[in-house]
């Protein structure tokens, strides 16, 4: 085995870096853990959950909005920077940041020709100071997705389905998508429990069948354990 260049170079780094390791006291570590636990004890996992999507015809004068409510806002601990945003692909591949006010309400307005329903995929990304959250193996989420099966644009309401899964931080890809069909559900409401199979960092991923645009009325993702 050879002692390589990086290993040697680490031996010459500024002592301040090494001192930082000594100074990183246990009290700070447990404070970090405590704030994470506090964060999860509230409905922060559902912070971007409730979305009312408005589908607007191309010639409509109404400016479409996405509204999101942070559930459990009374216990909400404000994060320092962005903490939640939506990414819709396609047609809009950009991230749209949701910023919550003290009442727990966030609204964004987007150009009227954009389609806010889930055309293909919706990625739900939670961040704390720019960092992803770690979910522990066994963490459970109660997921509720409400769609409008009678909305314009759905050609085959009996064939509408959604897939729900998680995006793994390591490869940035969705994994273990579970399919949920709306065939037998006249109300267009899906409710299920989702359990994290492996401790790691994840975002959530929701996709509809690609042949139809699904008009999403609301999405709730609540951490329950």
């Amino acid at each position, binding site marked *: 085995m050879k*002692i390589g260049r*990086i*290993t040697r*170079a680490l031996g010459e*780094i500024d002592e301040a870096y090494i001192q930082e*390791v000594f100074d990183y006291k246990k009290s700070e570590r447990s404070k970090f853990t405590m704030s994470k636990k506090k964060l999860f004890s509230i409905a922060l996992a559902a912070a971007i959950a409730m979305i009312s999507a408005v589908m607007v015809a191309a010639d409509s004068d109404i400016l479409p909005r996405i509204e999101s409510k942070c559930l459990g806002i009374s216990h909400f601990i404000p994060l320092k920077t962005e903490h939640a945003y939506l990414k819709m692909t396609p047609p809009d591949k950009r991230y749209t940041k949701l910023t919550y006010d003290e009442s727990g309400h966030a609204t964004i307005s987007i150009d009227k020709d954009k389609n806010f329903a889930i055309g293909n995929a919706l990625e739900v990304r939670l961040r704390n100071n720019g960092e992803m959250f*770690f979910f522990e193996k066994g963490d459970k989420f109660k997921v509720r997705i409400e769609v409008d099966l009678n909305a314009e644009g759905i050609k085959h309401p009996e064939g509408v389905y959604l897939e729900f899964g998680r995006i793994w931080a390591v490869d940035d890809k969705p994994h273990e998508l579970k399919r949920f069909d709306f065939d037998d559900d006249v109300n267009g409401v899906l409710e299920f429990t989702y359990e994290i199979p*492996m401790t*790691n960092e994840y975002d959530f991923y929701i996709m509809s069948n690609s042949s139809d645009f699904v008009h999403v009325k609301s999405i709730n993702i609540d951490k329950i354990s």
Partner: protein
Amino acid sequence: MWTLDEERIIGLFLARDQKALEETQKSCGALLLRAALRVLGSRADADECINDALMILWQNIPPAVPTSFRAYACKVVRNVALKRLEHDLAQKRSINASVPIEELEAVLSDERAAEKMSDAEFSQTLDSFLRKLSQEARIVFLKRYFFFDTVPEIARDLNISESKVNSMLFRARKKLREEYEKE
């Protein structure tokens, strides 16, 4: 900024009072022993390494006056231990160090590119990488690749899961590779 203890010890070094070495042992002996054992795996080798490191500290201070004595002493011990490890081919007895060393050196997949860099450029790139990491990520990185702590030890020390430690190390090595490939 020195603690009172460090200030006193550095004072002894500067006054060329040999009590400096005894006081260094008392003050940070356990830390230095752990640093040496991590690399060498053998108590006898580690003790010898610390003796050599104390000699180097005595020769270097003055003119060097470290801003953090403990950190400086750790660096000296680590470097002496690594030289000893390489010289004696003692990797069979230093299981702790060989795995992190191999993990880290695998970052330089194109060694020829790295060889073209001067020592100063190489160190600057490493420094730039460390500065860009979050505090927690930097601490995990240094605990693993400077101090050669095991993943379970890091997880326990920082009160985080082993998976998180592994993830953070994976991402850090990826970022380090990107920094060197940029150069």
